[in-house]
């Protein structure tokens, strides 16, 4: 069977599975719609949380980012996992004990103020909507690359699928489809990684393969990679950082706090039966996430070595008779010369997968020195030795550009894996994007139907009508997010940073103070949220324009790019959170204590006994 047919079959089968689950898990009550009836097993919830959390960006882009950034890419690995420790210890069990459906509801009740709740709804909607644009475009990209339909058609199909299981199934339908989606996406990620690790190191576990020697030699894979990239004028893989140590520190912290404060992740913990389950479920979620997150750095490093090995024979990889990449121990032991004229790949002999990806425009080359071979190196290097060698060899500039997303998507082709593995990667990319989109839609629709329609506009709404309102707002959210995916605003790329910045600077501190500071009052919490939000937006807008409108940036006014101790706007969420805490405590000291019954409520939230099913009642 040809690749296209196999891909249609595998992706079609995965969609049929999701729809089947949706029919089985229809939601009949608001409790099932918002919190899956509070009956999800902690391990099941962990798996659903992992799929919820791992987006198109984690699945497709992260390994490529790490391949490009080297050691510095660790900020994504630590930042996007370390937040689960904060979530498990500081938020999840207490919010579960509180026993309501949404994050704004906790903030509104704890700070006895519908203003606080409305501020939280605005933060939630901004963070979730900016996040979902990326998922919708991800769905479109995956469809167009693998199924040969246009990106727009891909988004329509994606919308239809999510509509079926999210609108009818609510949180219950989403939870069980996310479990299926997790299984699809993790298989799709691990299978190629295992094959590649075996090829290069003989060790089937990528996590161990990355720390092993190249097959048939005693040269460690990472040592070899460091040699190759520094010979070619790039920074050393295992030590290169992005920006200053302080920036990496703050960036990592921002991602951690942001992760713990993202509403679509937090609300997954309302679905487990007990406080005890909420604690362990975060651990299970992290195990399932770690399966991908500890594999990603191996995929990144190995794919980078494979790529260099494909275009330069002196790297010590060669194409075996069947076309797959194999290690040549002799060349590695001798540390071949990457600048030798015959080492570079002849254009005519380039492998099939390169030709396929050239068509997508994600991989390009240009024979600048007209020698009929491809040279891939850093022509802007500051390494004088590499520069001199490249000039002596007659190299006239880097001839190959590779989009970072190829690293995962083309991996099975580079390693010459069977067609069903390539089809599985397509299904996995779609599963990652759809599962995250569904989780975000749930957060958006519950904020609208429960926190706005029920709690602000119409407190007397019947359960049946609230369920209907929930389904309608879900449908509207799907249409809006699809529209934004079809017509992505020019700023789409910069907005994920904003989602984390908002979650870190507004929601996380407010929830945490609500639990850990019994005396925190509504004035303090509202002032803190607004201050954290304002400072973060100010810094991001200064760099990227007011509401991301081109030409309205005012970075010179604040003293130039990254003027705040060299911190980039993406890394600013932690600074915003600090502002939030400081402002909240100062205002709290100047205003009067929260009422007695609120302090009792906090004491009650702190102990597990008396937990009941999540019901959202007042």
């Amino acid at each position, binding site marked *: 069977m040809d690749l296209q047919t196999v891909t249609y079959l595998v992706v079609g089968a995965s969609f049929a599975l999701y729809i089947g689950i949706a029919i089985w898990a229809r939601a009949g009550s608001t409790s099932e719609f918002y919190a899956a009836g509070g009956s999800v097993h902690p391990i099941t919830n962990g798996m659903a949380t992992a799929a919820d959390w791992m987006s198109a960006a984690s699945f497709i882009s992260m390994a490529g980012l790490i391949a490009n950034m080297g050691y510095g890419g660790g900020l994504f*690995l630590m930042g996007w996992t*370390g937040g689960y420790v904060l979530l498990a210890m500081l938020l999840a069990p207490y919010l579960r004990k509180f026993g309501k459906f949404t994050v704004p509801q906790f903030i509104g009740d704890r700070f006895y103020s519908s203003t606080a709740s409305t501020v939280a709804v605005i933060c939630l909607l901004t963070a979730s909507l900016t996040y979902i644009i990326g998922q919708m475009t991800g769905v479109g990209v995956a469809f167009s690359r693998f199924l040969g339909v246009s990106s727009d058609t891909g988004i329509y199909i994606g919308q239809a699928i999510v509509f079926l299981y999210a609108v009818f199934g609510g949180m219950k339908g989403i939870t069980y489809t996310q479990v299926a989606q997790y299984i699809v996406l993790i298989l799709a990620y691990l299978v190629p990684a295992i094959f590649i690790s075996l090829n290069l190191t003989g060790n089937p576990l990528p996590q161990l393969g990355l720390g092993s020697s190249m097959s048939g030699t005693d040269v460690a894979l990472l040592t070899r990679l460091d040699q190759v990239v520094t010979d070619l004028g790039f920074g050393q893989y295992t030590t290169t950082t992005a920006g200053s140590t302080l920036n990496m520190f703050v960036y*990592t912290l921002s991602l951690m706090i942001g992760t713990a404060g993202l509403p679509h992740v937090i609300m997954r913990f309302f679905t487990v039966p007990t406080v005890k389950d909420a604690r*362990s479920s975060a651990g299970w979620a992290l195990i399932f996430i770690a399966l991908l997150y500890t594999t990603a750095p191996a995929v990144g490093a190995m794919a980078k070595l494979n790529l260099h090995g494909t275009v330069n024979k002196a790297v010590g990889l060669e194409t075996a008779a069947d076309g797959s990449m194999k290690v040549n121990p002799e060349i590695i032991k001798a540390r071949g010369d990457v600048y030798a004229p015959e080492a570079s790949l002849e254009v005519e002999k380039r492998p099939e997968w390169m030709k396929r990806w050239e068509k997508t425009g994600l991989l390009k080359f240009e024979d600048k020195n007209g020698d009929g071979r491809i040279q891939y190196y850093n022509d802007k290097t500051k390494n004088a030795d590499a520069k001199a060698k490249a000039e002596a060899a007659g190299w006239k500039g880097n001839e190959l550009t590779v989009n970072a997303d190829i690293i995962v998507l083309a991996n099975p082709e580079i390693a010459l894996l069977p067609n069903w593995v390539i089809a599985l990667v397509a299904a996995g990319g779609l599963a990652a994007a759809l599962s995250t989109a569904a989780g975000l839609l749930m957060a958006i629709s519950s904020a609208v139907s429960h926190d706005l329609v029920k709690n602000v506009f119409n407190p007397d709404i019947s359960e049946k009508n609230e369920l209907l309102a929930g389904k309608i707002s879900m449908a509207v959210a799907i249409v809006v997010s699809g529209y934004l995916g079809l017509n992505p605003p020019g700023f789409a790329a910069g907005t994920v940073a904003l989602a984390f910045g908002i979650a870190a600077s507004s929601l996380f501190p407010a929830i945490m103070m609500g639990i850990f500071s019994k005396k925190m009052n509504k004035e303090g919490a509202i002032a803190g949220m607004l201050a954290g939000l304002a400072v973060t937006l100010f810094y991001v807008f200064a760099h990227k324009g007011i509401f991301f409108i081109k030409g309205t940036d005012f970075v010179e006014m604040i003293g130039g790019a990254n003027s705040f101790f060299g911190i980039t706007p993406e890394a600013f969420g932690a600074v915003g959170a600090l502002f939030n805490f400081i402002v909240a405590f100062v205002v709290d000291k100047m205003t009067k204590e929260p009422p007695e019954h609120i302090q009792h409520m906090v004491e009650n939230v702190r102990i597990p006994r008396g937990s009941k099913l999540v019901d959202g009642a007042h």
Partner: protein
Amino acid sequence: MEHGGKTYWQTVVGLLTKILIVWFLISFGAGILFVEQLNTIKLGGYPLGFWFAHQGSIYGFIALIFFYAKKMGDIDRQFDVHED
């Protein structure tokens, strides 16, 4: 709700503080602040600091959450505030 002179909440906050210190040390400490010093040590083919940033911190986070969940269960029973 007192036990050994400490309230339930003081005991919980004490546990959280200890876990957060370890959380900080394995990620920000070993993976960022002291990465150069640790990279002089090898763990198989991994420089140790690099390993913490790309692998070790994540394993540590998982261990910390399960340790936390277990310890909290013990504390809940000790103070008789556990769920039935």
